[in-house]
């Protein structure tokens, strides 16, 4: 397969690049700062693309690669791929489900603990020498808090399982009720928010879920409520969230994603009840390598005419 041209859009993982290099003729998009030159010389031969949430496969991109057969996304989220268009053109799409479920769920709980218990602020307090002057203030207990999950898929379920070990009662909102789950269902996000202490976003980003956390939901969550977002930035109306935090209308937030990464609203920088992370939900050595293996496995399967490992389209 060394004569098959595969394009990788972003240098996300050296192991992934190295393994792709071994199997295909790998073309690195970032080596061509002049897009025109790239598309002139290579576009007709590229049969596979490895992209990620920061490099969308939209209509324009797909149309610029006439020989494209497969898009293998280094992510589980697919809001950055025009799935309908790919399906129409016969372009296969794969993602990396399951391998990152645990890490994302771990991070969600980590964000809850760090935010409610002020761990980051405590650490800053110690490092600055303030402990010598007096004790840090009281923080909020996590165990037993009511956790409301938006989206009870793989990640939502994994978050629920972990939170239950902390004696947290679990409730959820989903497109449809899941009768096999023991958790309490709410038919709207506003109702979910008004009945929980910690609201977690764990659903896919679609047209229906864009800004699913809006002003009304934040008001329902209230001044003792916390928001945790490990989904996608556009799930939340970011200016409304910033206002709610700055004005103290919700108790705090733990955020791994933002509407326009890597841009983060600066008003949040000075708030000690907010924890900000640079989209690291799946960011462990072990998981990123497992994601890379899945990307490679899918490409190999496609080009040897075997069944795809994790097809979406």
């Amino acid at each position, binding site marked *: 397969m060394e004569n098959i041209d595969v394009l990788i859009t972003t240098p996300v993982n050296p192991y992934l690049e190295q393994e792709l290099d071994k199997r295909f003729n790998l073309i690195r998009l970032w080596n061509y700062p002049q897009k025109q030159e790239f598309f002139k010389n290579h576009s007709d031969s590229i049969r596979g693309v490895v992209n990620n949430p920061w490099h969308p496969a939209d209509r324009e991109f797909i149309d610029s690669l006439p020989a494209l057969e497969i898009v293998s996304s280094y992510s589980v989220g697919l809001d950055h791929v025009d799935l309908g268009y790919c399906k129409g053109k016969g372009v296969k799409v794969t993602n990396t489900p399951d391998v990152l479920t645990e890490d994302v769920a771990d991070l969600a709980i*980590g964000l809850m603990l760090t935010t409610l218990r002020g*761990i980051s602020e405590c650490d800053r307090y110690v490092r600055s020498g303030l402990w010598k002057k007096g004790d840090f203030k009281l923080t909020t207990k996590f165990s037993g808090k009511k956790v409301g999950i938006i989206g009870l898929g793989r990640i939502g379920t994994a978050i629920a399982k972990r939170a239950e070990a902390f004696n947290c009662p679990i409730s959820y909102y989903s497109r449809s009720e899941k009768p096999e789950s023991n958790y309490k269902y709410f038919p709207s996000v506003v109702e979910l928010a008004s009945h929980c202490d910690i609201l977690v976003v764990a659903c896919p980003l679609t047209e229906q879920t864009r800004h699913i956390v809006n002003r009304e939901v934040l008001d329902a969550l209230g001044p003792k409520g916390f928001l945790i977002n490990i989904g996608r930035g556009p799930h939340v109306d970011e200016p409304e969230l910033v206002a709610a935090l700055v004005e103290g209308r919700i108790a705090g937030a733990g955020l791994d994603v933002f509407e326009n990464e890597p841009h983060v609203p600066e008003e949040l920088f000075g708030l000690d009840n907010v924890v900000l992370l640079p989209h690291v939900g799946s960011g462990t050595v072990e998981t990123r390598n497992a994601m890379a293996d899945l990307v490679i496995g899918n490409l190999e399967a496609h080009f040897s005419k075997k069944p795809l490992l994790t097809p979406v389209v």
Partner: protein
Amino acid sequence: MAGSVKAAFCSASSRVTTGVLQNLPELRFIVTSSVGVDHIDLHECKRRGVKVANAGSIFSEDVADAAVGLLIDVLRRISAANRFVKAGLWHENGGYPLGHKLGGKRVGIIGMGSIGLDVAKRLNAFGCIISYTSRNEKPHVKFPFCPNIQELAAKSEILVICCALTDQTRHMIDKSVMLALGRDGIIVNIARGAIVNEKDLVECLLQQEIAGVGLDVFENEPNVPEELLELDNVVMTPHHAVMTEQSLRDLYELVVRNLDAFFSNKPLMFEVTRV
């Protein structure tokens, strides 16, 4: 006036020594706000017929939460990444250094009282493989027991210290335990600073003999070894594991209830009977 005092309330920072007890000849009850009782001369109290009660298990959940929070923070670099973003340093997508997965890691819990058990229950839900060591094996605990700390460290990637500070546990976690734990090892201490040989800990961190630590307690609080202040793989909290609004409210209620019980000759909650 001291001659008529029958009951006393103290915190972990007041040492209740023979000298103190001598000055309170009518004392028959001490209630401490802590779980730890290493600041009280239990032997002398028993000799004098002074009952002792501590905070029992009312803090266990908060302390276990703090232990898990510190662990995830160290493994996934939460505080370090929070600092990074708030300093305005996030300019490139996907640029932040990777952390390490918690699931599947072998965790050794030192001390299996109510705190150790709460930690075990939580980490089990994350897919960790739990073992423990304790003065005695606990028949009601389903996780494998390890008879000594060296063996536990050798078969673990993470150690969580949840035991009391006693003569036997002072400096129990020393260089040899850290070397047995290994270069990928993480230590979390929410018990007492003196259980860890702090000098060895600093040395092992600087020489990368262990991968990181989460510490709520230190040998000489509120002083913290300066070398730790420069390290990104260290997360520190100021002996804060019990300091939630709810725990303190529960504590006040417990102390008042116990003082009431003592003065009405009713049974105490969380009486400390070991010596």
